[in-house]
């Protein structure tokens, strides 16, 4: 997102905001769906994110990168929705055996998706931001509000847990 467009949005320019919307809508939805595993919740999180981005853009420091700032708001919105969910709706709380019985994974993507569902929220966040959205560790430290070494450690733990989930539940479909 270029500085000129940001400046125009700060002045209330609708066309400039639409440019931002077009540029970020798809990746925001993809991230939110990957983290929330629910289209309707993801849509709520993304809509609220754009509202907060527009209303809060005056406080955005133009000397910094826009992308991490945007993802920080999105991640916080996703977290807010997860907190709101009833405990039984959160995949973190569902026993592994129950999830595994829902539907056997058919593709690599489905297998990984199933395993991701069983990760803790902060591990899932880290995997999505790094491998799906391609954020650097520095950008992730801004988004997640933790140091770069904490990002590295979280990613390490997330990969370890994901590997374990895949080992435990693939039943021979995928050797990792």
């Amino acid at each position, binding site marked *: 997102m270029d500085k000129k467009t940001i400046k125009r949005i700060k002045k209330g320019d609708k066309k400039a905001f639409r440019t931002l919307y077009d540029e970020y809508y798809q990746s925001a939805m993809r991230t939110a769906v990957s983290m929330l595993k629910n289209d309707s919740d993801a849509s709520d999180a993304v809509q609220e994110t754009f509202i*907060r981005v527009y209303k809060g853009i005056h406080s955005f420091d133009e000397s910094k990168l826009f992308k991490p700032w945007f993802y920080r708001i999105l991640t916080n919105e996703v977290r807010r929705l997860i907190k709101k969910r009833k405990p039984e709706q959160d995949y973190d709380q569902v026993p592994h055996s129950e999830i595994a019985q829902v539907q056997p994974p058919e593709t690599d993507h489905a297998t990984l998706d199933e395993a991701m569902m069983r990760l803790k929220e902060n591990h899932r966040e880290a995997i999505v931001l790094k491998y*799906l959205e391609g954020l650097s560790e520095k950008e992730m430290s801004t988004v997640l509000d933790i140091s770069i070494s904490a990002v590295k450690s979280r990613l390490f733990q997330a990969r370890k847990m994901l590997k374990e989930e895949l080992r435990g539940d693939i039943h021979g479909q995928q050797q990792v």
Partner: protein
Amino acid sequence: MDNNKFERYIEKTLKEEEYKVDELQKEKMWQELEGQLSFEKEKKKKPHWIGLVSTAAAILILASGLLFTTPGHALVDTVKKWFEPEKQMKIPMEGSEEQETATLNDQSEKGYVIYVDEEHYKLEEHEEYDLITTKEPLPEQYPEVSMRIIHEKDQSVEETIRNLEAEYDLTFESTDYPIDAQTARTIEGHEWNSPVNRFYVISDENGGSYIFHQKYFLEASEGHGVRLSEMLKEFYIVEK
């Protein structure tokens, strides 16, 4: 599978299924956003003669204003009458007190005045905010030290807090130091140079709000942190 292979596997597999945008859903969301957000009205191009007449009218109004009253000057005079040009501030530093002279910075056009410890800091005006920062730039190994003053004219205290809470994942609470305000902070680590962000939000007494965003680092909490807060104590809202 080794780590590199595993990382490639995650990336490739996650990106395997492209997220397909549902255009209808996207447009529906945009309409919702349009309904909820207030944008500037698009300016229609005026015929050339309107511009000329407006300029002439503006010159006339300005000229008559200068002849009879000078509201801007009157305001500055009033501010000068109300606020002394310099003030002595006592800064609590590590168990003792330091005496500093603070200078009146008249930002009454923006609805406030503040006393700045100009021996250590300066006030910079930016398009969307004012920034009190160190008079001399800090060596590059030090994180930023500053206090940003943002006037959210159309945003209530509650709305501002909601936005900041979402943006920084914070929870605000009431405080009476250095001023009566809602406050929250983040500390990014436990090292001497870990950045600290401290926010204060107050009402602008006209339906809007002011945000004071202080940035310093852990080791400077008792130094710059205190000095910035002591200056914040000397912030006054004035009528425009």
